[in-house]
């Protein structure tokens, strides 16, 4: 049963006050986006499910600490992405795990749709090769559309760090995806760093 009459904030406050169904309604509303963030950060469906479960249990219990100075979805994404990063740090998961079995959407008929799907798969695969810090930043900013400021708050880093992680991640993706556009251009610039740390 859905509860369209109440906003996310109202539902979260109702949950904190003891409403037994309010939190489940919030999760029901946003679970695909939460899943997408967990999956893209963890790369492996079972790990993503574990991390998302961790995060939702944590959020369920911490709802009383929600300060209301950000959207509920931002707060939830923040908990999910940090649960993912915690899990990755704990298990030292490498970024070379295979693509999820259930990819982004079912194949569609027609060359254009096939090309879109192939591009999406290539982008997802390339995304999986990035360092997790860059992948998380790109997932939140470029894919989920969060602002740099919100993402910085979610990840607990400076805004410049988010900008740098996104840009450097995109640069690596550009090299990896270069064959899709202009391989000569992408190959012309050698990836790597001059030893400088990423901007903070």
């Amino acid at each position, binding site marked *: 049963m859905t509860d369209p009459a109440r906003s996310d904030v109202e539902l979260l406050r109702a949950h*904190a006050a*003891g409403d037994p*169904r309010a*939190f*489940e309604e919030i*999760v029901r509303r946003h*679970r*695909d986006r939460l*899943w997408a963030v967990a*999956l893209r950060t963890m790369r492996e469906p079972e790990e*993503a*499910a*574990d991390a998302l*479960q*961790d995060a*939702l249990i*944590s959020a*369920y*219990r*911490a*709802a*009383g*600490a*929600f*300060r*209301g*100075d950000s959207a509920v979805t931002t707060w939830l994404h*923040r*908990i999910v992405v*940090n*649960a993912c990063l*915690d899990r990755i*740090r*704990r*298990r030292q998961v490498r970024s070379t795990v295979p693509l999820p079995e259930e990819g*982004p959407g079912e194949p569609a008929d027609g060359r254009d749709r096939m090309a879109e799907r192939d591009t*999406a798969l290539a*982008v997802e695969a390339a995304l999986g090769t990035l360092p997790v810090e860059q992948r998380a930043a790109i997932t939140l900013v*470029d*894919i989920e559309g969060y602002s740099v400021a919100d993402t910085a*708050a979610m990840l*607990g880093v400076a805004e*410049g760090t988010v*900008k*740098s992680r996104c*840009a*450097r991640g*995109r*640069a690596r*993706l*550009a090299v990896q*995806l270069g064959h899709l*556009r*202009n391989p000569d*251009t992408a190959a012309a*610039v050698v990836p790597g760093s*001059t030893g400088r*740390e990423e*901007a*903070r």
Partner: protein
Amino acid sequence: MTADDPRPVPPPPLHPDLDTLADLDAGVLDGPTAERVSGHVRNCTRCTAALRAMSSVRDDLRALPTPPMPAAVAARLDDVLAGLRHERSDGPGPGGTTPLPITDRRPEQPGPAEHRPGPGQPGPDQRDPEQVRPAPGSDLDRARERRRRRLTRIAGSVAAAVAVLAAAGSVTALVRAAGSGGVDDTAAAGGAGAEQLPAPASGDSAVDGYDIPSYGKESLRGALPQIEQQSAVDVITGRGDTGPAGAMSDTARRTACVGSIRGSSGELQAVRRIRYEGTMAYVFVFSDDGRRTAYVVGDDCGTAPALPAAVLDTVS
């Protein structure tokens, strides 16, 4: 090039590396560097093309579809949430509901990591079918029981672990300064890397097996390297309330606290529950451009909505 050579002046031969181009794109280069790199890019078709490629990647990323949550995962999460709902409704309180245990988390509550343990962890923490698909209520009770058994086993194994380390001439010795106002635990190094051993509970200075060390400002400054090593974020997460970071092992609680510490910057390195000048507190260690800063915050950090953290002290 000669005076009658019609070819344009070539750009400087040394192209900026990809990270520098990316940082130019992000607008995070310092002024002089940005000016120098921009000057190069303006005259370099190769670097201009690379920047265009980065922009194309942004478009590719924005076009990615949102993968729907698989039905099996949705069902599993529904089960977990139903279990939490039952757990809450089974507790005391009017109308069969219990207020959320934010500031008074019971140590025996299964935290997220205990609920979904990682591979390689021994005994009851290993995955089993009931943990993969928790059922309402009863599984959570079983999880509590498993955790109680695990804690008992850990406490019982500490003495054996110390004996093994001593017999092997290992690097770690745990020196307990009982009643000391300074650092309680010190690692006497005889080799690389000191390890932390969970100490037996003793009085009110311990939480289920971990001592809560007492510090003043100077002793805390001296202990920061040890705290960073023993209570690094990647170490304390998932240990639940009974670990060295206490309640801050919970991601949401820790994230809420960090967000409320005014003036903090950089990445969180470590969290440790401590007693600071006699007051229960947490110390958060941040690293910003190689500079370490520790914030000592009140024991209730991350629990009060819309209130900044009570920062008791900072140590750099």
